[in-house]
């Protein structure tokens, strides 16, 4: 099997360039590529377009990249947890494109799957439909939406092998599998990296063909946004 292993996050992200289009897996702060984000924060790059369902919080996740003014544009479905985000948006420093969550997921899936465009009902009759082709199929209206791809996709998995095969855990899977397939260069960080052959071929969520680099992550904080418990 082809070995995709790199030493660490720094090595994995070293060729990310200013004005690149990046994808980040995760929903809220769950399943985000913490190590890659940390490594990107150490680089002198900016003008980035970041595709991610959310934009992190002020002091964690993509929020940290916003603080450092590395981001030119966010493409997300929900960005509400971030004061610095709001400030930059209102001041015009930051551009934001809001996309219905299912459309975002499907546009990214389409990018990985070689589908340049597809029809979806989400957003018909709303401002999301502005400038988009509207067409009726079987008595229902749909919008034409385009694929999304990235120069680099950053994903986080629970287990991975040296061939780049990935298994996610719980709801930390979310956008990671589609983004893994939609990156020209996909960088996967995992909590546990094992030799190729140790994962059950029938239980892999992301086939290694989509992953160009993989490394063993460390010091995962896995911050919880809404710790909710019962007695």
């Amino acid at each position, binding site marked *: 099997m082809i070995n995709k292993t790199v030493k660490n996050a720094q090595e994995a992200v070293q060729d990310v360039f200013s004005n690149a289009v990046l994808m980040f897996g995760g929903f809220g702060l769950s399943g985000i590529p913490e190590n890659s984000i940390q490594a990107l924060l150490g680089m002198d790059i900016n003008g980035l377009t970041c595709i991610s369902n959310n934009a992190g919080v002020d002091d964690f996740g993509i929020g940290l990249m916003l603080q450092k003014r590395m981001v030119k544009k966010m493409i997300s479905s929900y*960005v509400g947890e971030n004061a610095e985000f709001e400030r930059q948006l209102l001041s015009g420093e930051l551009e934001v494109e809001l996309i219905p969550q*299912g459309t975002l997921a499907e546009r990214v899936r389409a990018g990985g799957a070689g589908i340049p465009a597809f029809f*979806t009902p989400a957003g018909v009759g*709303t401002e999301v439909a502005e400038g988009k082709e509207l067409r009726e199929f079987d008595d229902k209206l749909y919008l034409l939406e385009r694929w999304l791809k990235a120069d680099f996709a950053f994903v986080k998995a*629970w287990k991975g092998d040296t061939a780049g095969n990935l298994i996610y855990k*719980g*709801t930390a899977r979310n956008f990671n599998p589609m983004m893994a397939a939609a990156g020209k260069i996909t960088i996967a960080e995992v909590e546990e990296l094992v030799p190729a052959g140790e994962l059950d071929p029938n239980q892999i969520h992301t086939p290694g063909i989509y992953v160009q680099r993989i490394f063993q992550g460390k010091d995962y904080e896995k911050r919880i946004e809404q710790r909710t418990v019962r007695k």
Partner: protein
Amino acid sequence: MLTKDQIAQRIAKEVKDGQYINLGIGIPTLVANYIPENLDVVLQSENGLLGIGPFPTEDKVDPDLINAGKQTITMTKGSVLFSSAESFAMIRGGHVQLTILGAMEVSENGDISNWKIPGKMVKGMGGAMDLVASAERIIVAMQHCSKDGQSKLLKSCTLPITGIRCVDMIVSDLAVLEVLPEGGFKLLERAPGISVEEIQAKTEGKLIVEGEIPEMNFAS
């Protein structure tokens, strides 16, 4: 006027055995507390889970297991995890039969506004546009009027739209109403102590009142 919990309790009576259901953030989340135990239903979390269980005890909190409101949760027996693409494939494909969500405004033809208030910071639509565009049946939990007394059940929505001609039923703090396919809010039930006249006065859109309108009954 109904409390938030009472709105949730009333909506729970609409749940049918064997349904797959998506509950939005806020009042809709409370509906889970009132679904009768003899019904087998499955709650979907659009971030990738079928089979939401109760909130965890302190020792069972798992950062890798959250709901669409980013709250820590547990899983029921027979639950299944999947990606966001699969989750919305399920929603878009009409497999999730019932969606319960909040609204800021609903129009008499079933349009809903619930994602954006001009002049306020826009947080995004999340999965709401996908949900309202696709679900077989959509029930809205909302306040009948704004804090300054303006009706939120309108002829047409004034706020940016989330989806068109999609709402089937509204449970507000004042009433239960069906949105008719041909347009109009058909009054089905009154909140305890609320008169038809008051509901009429507080509904800007076309209200349809046929015969005697019963008070809600919270005994199941």
